[in-house]
């Protein structure tokens, strides 16, 4: 049995999810709401929802991992989205992605320890002439090389210091 701690956030989730006890059809609703509260879905929330809706936790995680929308790690302050569309792929966006992940020490979908960056991927942001492209927040950066991309990301740290 999972018992959630007594915090305002957890209580909101408890209150919401308890409406759907035993109702398997409300899974997406429950997940959506909980992600809205926490920004992501921590393991105890997945287990709690499984228990309340009477679904095996494996199935809940199956749904969570199936949809891109759901996250199992907290989101960083900035989201770096590297384009893996056809044009960008041809122009070497995979190397850009790999370099960023390596330098930041995270996997795709992961968040840096300081909570600053999350790296994710997208399929074509409609800026093919600039390929390869990445988007940080609302800014679009084009004509990247792995080094150039890393310099830009580093810039965000420096900006903070000044």
């Amino acid at each position, binding site marked *: *049995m999972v018992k959630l701690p007594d915090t305002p956030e957890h209580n909101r989730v408890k209150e919401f999810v308890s409406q759907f006890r035993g109702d398997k059809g409300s899974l997406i609703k429950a997940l959506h709401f909980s992600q809205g509260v926490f920004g992501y879905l921590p393991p105890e929330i997945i*287990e709690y929802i499984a228990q309340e809706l009477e*679904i*095996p*936790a*494996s*199935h809940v*995680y*199956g749904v969570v*991992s*199936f949809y891109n929308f759901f996250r199992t790690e907290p989101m960083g302050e900035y989201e770096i989205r590297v384009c893996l569309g056809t044009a960008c792929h041809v122009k070497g966006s995979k190397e850009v992605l790999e370099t960023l992940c390596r330098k930041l020490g995270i996997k795709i979908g992961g968040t840096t320890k300081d909570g600053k960056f999350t790296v994710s991927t997208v399929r074509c942001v409609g800026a093919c002439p600039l390929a390869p492209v990445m988007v940080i927040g609302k800014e679009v950066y084009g004509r990247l090389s792995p080094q150039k991309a890393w310099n830009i990301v580093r810039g965000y740290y420096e900006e903070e210091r000044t």
Partner: protein
Amino acid sequence: MPKVVIDGIEIEVPPGTTILNAAQRVGVEIPVFCYHPYLKPAGICRMCLVEVEGMPRLLPACITEVQDGWEIYTNSDRVKDAREWLLEFVLVNHPLECPICDEAGECELQNFVFKFGEPRKRLYDEPFKYPTRYLGPLIVHQMNRCVLCRRCVRFSDEAMGGTDWGVYERGYRTIVGPYERDVFAQKYTFNMEALCPVGAITSNIYRYKTRIWKLDFTNSVCAHCEVGCWLDLGERDGQLLKVLHRRGYPSPWICDKGGYGFEYVNHSERITVPLRREGNRLRGVTTDEALEFVAGRLKGLVESGGKVAALVSPHLTCEDYLLMGSFMKEVVGSDYLDYRLYGGNTYPERPAVDSLEGVEKAEAYLVVGEDLSVHHPVLALSVAKGCKEGRASLYLIVTGDSFLFKFAAEHANPLPGKEEKVLEALASVLGGKDYASLLEGTEVSEDTLKAMAQGLQEKKPLIIGGSRLTPEGRVLLKGVGERLGITPLFLDWGSNSKGAFQMGFWSPGGESVEDILNKCVSGEIKGLFVSSMDLFRDYPNGTLVKEALSNLDFLVVHDMFFTETVAYSDCYLPATSFAEDGGTVVNMFWEAKKRNRAFKPKDESMPLWQVALGLSRKWGRPLGDFGTVEDVTPLVRERLSQVVEAPSTLGGVKAAHLKGDIPALFEYPFYRAGMRTDFCNAFVQLVPEPYVTLNPEYGDELGFKNGDIVIMEVDGNQFRMKLFFRDEVPRGGAIVSRGFSDFPITRALKGLWYRGIELRAAKE
């Protein structure tokens, strides 16, 4: 009815038939991965694509229903191409490690590539590099080899109502497996391994032992419980290495005891020569000397006016019971023999249903007094199947049910020892009498009971009485049955209780095992013959067993291992396992089936019928001239057709078992129930030591934590054990595990499986 032509063969099929089923009818083979006859069609893999005249695309045969006039081609060039391409794609990332894969030789991917593939590779990519997951002692999961057919996931969902086994991520990155745990052992795990068409799920027990084509398979019947699943025993060099369930009877599924619980057969601690006591030692002797010695001593005892009794495990064959019974009754002249060594004082009864299909068809179920998934596991799957999609309603009056509760419409989970009180209350509700007072102290609410009674009157239920019921409980349940117009299905312990009963292996005076043991204590019985059971492990009164055995003049034990019972013996005779000799067994529906010999007995081991025959010869009054077990079978057949009346057993149960703080039920964990499970290494690893379980809330109240070490005290005896929290335990009660030959837990019991216990935290 639609008429179709498949590869030139015309056939008429009922509407709704799929192309695949129609093709099977005319004997046309279509390769499949995800399709399985006992799972719902899913249409995932596209291995089964076929061409239909006039259709622009190929159609998946497993999910497409035929329509009148279709001309179907399963072997056209387009179909062949599609198959080649599909297999080529599957192989792009497949590790191709057949030489070290246990599935090789029975792998469906391998077979299809040989049959339908093309030896070429046009796409080059890395093979999958997922880590191998060793999911405990039963199975290994290698995601690299998975073809994503999801048969395993569908089995877990459809047959077991969902377990910790799912599909994650999507597309090319999809993986399957458990989410929460590192050890996967869920009572029916074997079926997932068997369903996997490739080597993605393989058995850990069989890992790297041999190759499938080197095994000789023999048809047999499982010896663990009275469902009596058919097994195929795979033998090589006198070792039982693998069990398959190819013939799908009585159910397409079996449980892990049948599939993995055979390691004891090859166990290195088996003693396969006769031993004779000389002072403090047991000395190895020849079979001839041992039989001579036993017959001589028994004869001596009888001549000097002592009595001799026989207690024999309920897991043996009818041939064993028949000859041993004849020896005891006709040669020795004894009236004391019994097979009910798990305790209890009931005899088998004829049921109202005759097959698992019959069980699946019921409109409702009432199950009382047994966690079916532990002692009759495949029966539990059939009940679950009947309840699928809300078809039948299930009502449980079971303390601590661990599987069927998922499917139950109403679940009364009474405190230990109170199942029959609740049953009495149910009878009162149905009879329109007052019942509230009966429910006091059972932890079952009036609402539950009322809903149950109403449900049972609306739909005609199948009533199942578990092995925990006392004779009084059975009378109550029959009363409920009469009211609803149904004869209950009563279950018994062991795998051949019905056979033992039918062969007359019980005391004509109606004495129970307890009575026999008491007579050993009083000195009336001086000699005892025990076969294939450790009384200390299974008989629920360790203190009585100890007193009885210490008081005997002569004890013979016929067994496979050096158990505590053997330690008290004057002579030990080595027994065969179920794989080393054949015979007739009778399942829960009173069907007689045949076990076959998979390989010859190890060294000097003998089945019980041979022991009885040998003893009768040495006694000077041979039972007959039997060479093999087949010579005895005609006699067994004859006995099976006779009507046998059981002696009356009412009034033998003593109360006062439940004094103490917490009422407790002593129950076998799944992997400890059945025959010789404490010599199955995998099972021992899964459940290495005894433990107590409490409901989490109740445990909190008492101030314990999950995983604490506690002292359980009963009658001044102290037992140090681990404590776990489990949701299925009723609040206010405890469930204590039993079935450990090296831990004297039966000393806490007094003939029934309920006892009041005291619990406290162990001091460090």
